[in-house]
């Protein structure tokens, strides 16, 4: 078998320039996990349906499993690793912890990134706006009630109102 041609891909991941030489068929999800060792981005369905691999590309919500790394050359990528500040959880992560927005945690990175995108454009979403925006992410544990509560709590805290204390 002939060797596949490698493409030099350079991205800004969570504010740091990272690069690797990969075949064109390398999905962004695999680039992040296998080349950069960022295992926070999870791979579920690999067909753009489950949302576990959701990241921000140039500030926009996107599926890293239906994007080739070579397509996003030079772009700014934000992954779940970019949320927490060292040992200090990001406020959205804190709300998910507080309001039981996760159980097994497999889908959580995608939900956190989607919540980050939602709250950046709407700081006071209604239940139906939250459910509509998060409809592209699948959770098999929580039944979504805890997730919606977490997003509402994160929105409240981001607006400076004290959220639920559980």
């Amino acid at each position, binding site marked *: 078998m002939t060797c596949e041609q490698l493409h030099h891909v350079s991205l800004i991941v969570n504010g740091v320039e990272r690069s690797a030489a990969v*075949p064109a*068929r390398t999905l962004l999800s695999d680039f992040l996990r296998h080349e950069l060792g960022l295992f926070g981005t999870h791979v579920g369905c*690999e067909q753009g349906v489950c949302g576990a691999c959701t990241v921000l590309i140039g500030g926009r919500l*996107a*599926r890293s499993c*239906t994007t080739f790394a070579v397509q996003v050359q030079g772009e700014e990528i934000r992954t779940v690793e970019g949320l927490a500040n060292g040992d200090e959880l990001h406020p959205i992560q804190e709300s998910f912890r507080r309001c039981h927005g996760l159980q097994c945690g497999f889908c959580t990175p995608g939900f956190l990134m989607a919540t980050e995108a939602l709250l950046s454009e709407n700081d006071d979403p209604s239940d139906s706006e939250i459910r509509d925006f998060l409809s592209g992410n699948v959770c098999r544990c929580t039944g979504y009630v805890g997730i919606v509560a977490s997003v509402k709590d994160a929105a409240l805290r981001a607006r400076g109102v004290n959220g639920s204390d559980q």
Partner: protein
Amino acid sequence: MKPESFSFYVAESTQHALDILAQEGDDSKILAGGQSLIPLMNFRLARPAALVDVCHIPGSERITVDNAGVRFRCSVRHRDALHSNEVNAVAPLVGQALKWVGHEAIRSRGTLCGSTAHADPAAELPAVWLALGAEMVISGPHGERHVPAESFFKSFFTTDLNADEMLTEIRVPPAPDPSLRRTAFQEIARRHGDFAIVGAAVVIDLDGSGRIAAARVSALGAGEVPMRLRSAEAMLVGSPLDDQELLENVEAEVRKSVQPPGDSHASARYRKKVTGTLVRRSLAECAETPSTYEGML
């Protein structure tokens, strides 16, 4: 699963993209947002030998709105069209339908031209182009040709595009009188954002007295291509939009005229029935909306 290996090119211009297609042959494909193509490649249902990324062609992300209507260049993303005030002012049907396309993360990368060239019979945009009388601009080795939406969609996932051509632009003609145009889009899916089971797009142009001067009605998921429902359109012309008896008759006519396939998601009988219901709901929505163009006037 992972895709088969392929050669990858970034096109710098339309001509550059066409040159690569010519050089790589029939197994090469255009890559825009990749939201239809990459899942198929992950499953190895598609194994192109070469991909040509057209998203970096200068100006390809441009939406032009002028008195010739709206022009969407080849890498306009769903999200940008959905949030464009200009598009929503002159062709609100596009935004009405785009709300149903996938989810936020899909819409931020998927493109209008890519989805149109993919030609899924359950996709929203092809039915929208039929209802709006849009025109497809195709570039190929022998220059540019313009194809009406109705002749563009040939069969399941099959369009008028040849392997050495690309869809460079979609043109939506202007409404004869924007203040007298009403549009609506309705669909049924298992969950919002899933592929539609069936759907309907309606464009009505009223005359000065409130009667229907022209009607274009199209259905998706009701056959192997999106289709105009001409017998229903003919029944509408000349009547007021709030004629309940007419709407009932149109609904019955749609149910009689469509011959949808049945599959594991819905039986043929269900699709037939629901297509009629959705056309009726769309017409009712048109009647309720004073003018979808208020924002502009």
